[in-house]
């Protein structure tokens, strides 16, 4: 995705570099001597120097700015969510770091640290206290 943007940007900048800043000047005197028709060259010269090429108008920059603002807000929201996730992960990581080592645990400690290991003796009153398929 970023590669597409890059290729496009590169194409655009290459195109820009290929065009010279100013077009080559027209040698009016040569034409004045060469062209037989009288006054034509002078007329052209006049009109040419009077001509003003309009600069193309910029329609996209505002769009881009709005896009940027949008992206800022979404990015901020994403960063907030990401921070929340990091906090969660850190909490679990701390729990793992601070738990007692396995060979010093009892079953009660195990059930406290990992609630999913607790055997539901109410639901399955008979040993092994869990459905056979889960053994």
């Amino acid at each position, binding site marked *: 995705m970023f590669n597409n943007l890059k290729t*496009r940007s590169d194409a655009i900048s290459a195109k820009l570099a290929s065009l010279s800043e100013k077009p080559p000047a027209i040698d009016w005197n040569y034409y004045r001597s060469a062209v037989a028709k009288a006054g034509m060259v002078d007329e052209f010269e006049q009109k040419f120097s009077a001509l003003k090429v309009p600069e193309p108008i910029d329609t996209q920059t505002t769009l881009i700015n709005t896009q940027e603002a949008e992206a800022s807000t979404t990015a901020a929201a994403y960063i907030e969510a*990401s921070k929340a*996730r990091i906090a969660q992960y850190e909490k679990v990581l701390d729990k793992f770091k601070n738990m007692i080592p396995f060979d010093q645990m009892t079953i009660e400690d195990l059930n406290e640290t990992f609630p999913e290991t607790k055997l539901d003796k109410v639901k399955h009153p008979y040993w092994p206290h869990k459905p056979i398929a889960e053994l």
Partner: protein
Amino acid sequence: MNPKQLIFASNIQTHLCLQRHLLVTFFKTGAPLCSRDVSRGFLVYPPSLRLFAEGHAEAETRLPSGATTRHFHPSNMLSRLVLVSASSLKGSGALGAGLIQASRSLHTSSQSLAPVPPLPEKGGKVRHGIIPEELFQLLYPKTGVTGPYMLGAGLLMYILSKEIYVINHETFAAASIGAVFIYGVKKFGPSVAAFADKLNEDKVAKAQEVKDLAMTSLAQAIEDEKKEQWRAEGRSMLFDAKRNNVAMLLETNYRERLHMVTNEVKRRLDYQIALQNLHRQMEQEHMVNWVEKSVISSITPQQEKESIAKCITDLKALAKATQAKATA
């Protein structure tokens, strides 16, 4: 004698129960022991060691110590028996239910210690598989090394000679069973214990693996999240690139327009010049053709014959000249 006979009878019961009890405890780890007899609710004697001196009360002190878990004593009787039974067949299945009982005794006996000290690895030391080491240490100052043995021998003799314990058929049965049992335990005990240990260790290793994996993956996830945040910060660069692109396109367009204008003007002027040249060329050619045509048409037949004759004579002369040159 009635009370004594009653005590007598109850002693037999207790002895038999004790045997069964020990057998049972060797195969279980601290779980409810000797249920049938225990449920009759023996009196609990605080097994202070002075009762050892009294013969028939000894058994009764030994039995309840393993049976109940309610009344705790700073002595090591309870935890010792339980831990003995636990240590002889260590950690089968659960992570030592016997250890739970030991920890409970630790909790309620001493003042509250926090953090809870780790559970003891091995039970109390015993000599000859049953008799706690503390007895020997207790008697050592007064009677030396052989003290407890003498005590034991004396008690045994007393019991036998006074027929407090009567030797009967069951004695031999018990002796044989005891012999076989002890042989079995001594022979196969270590390997079975190693096997059970290995089972436990596998479980612990698996749990440890899970824990390690979880920790590494969590750390990795945290790293990734931080990286993503860093990436999100770079979005301004993207938009700058976009704006750059737009500016470049505009500039390109403008230059293209300038170029186009110049080129068009140039083309028109060049066209004019080319047109002029073409005209001149055509006129030239036409004139040349016309002159040629008129010249050719002006050649009269008379002039033609003369010129042809002249050409022939010139050729003849030339041929002669070359022939002469060739022969010479």
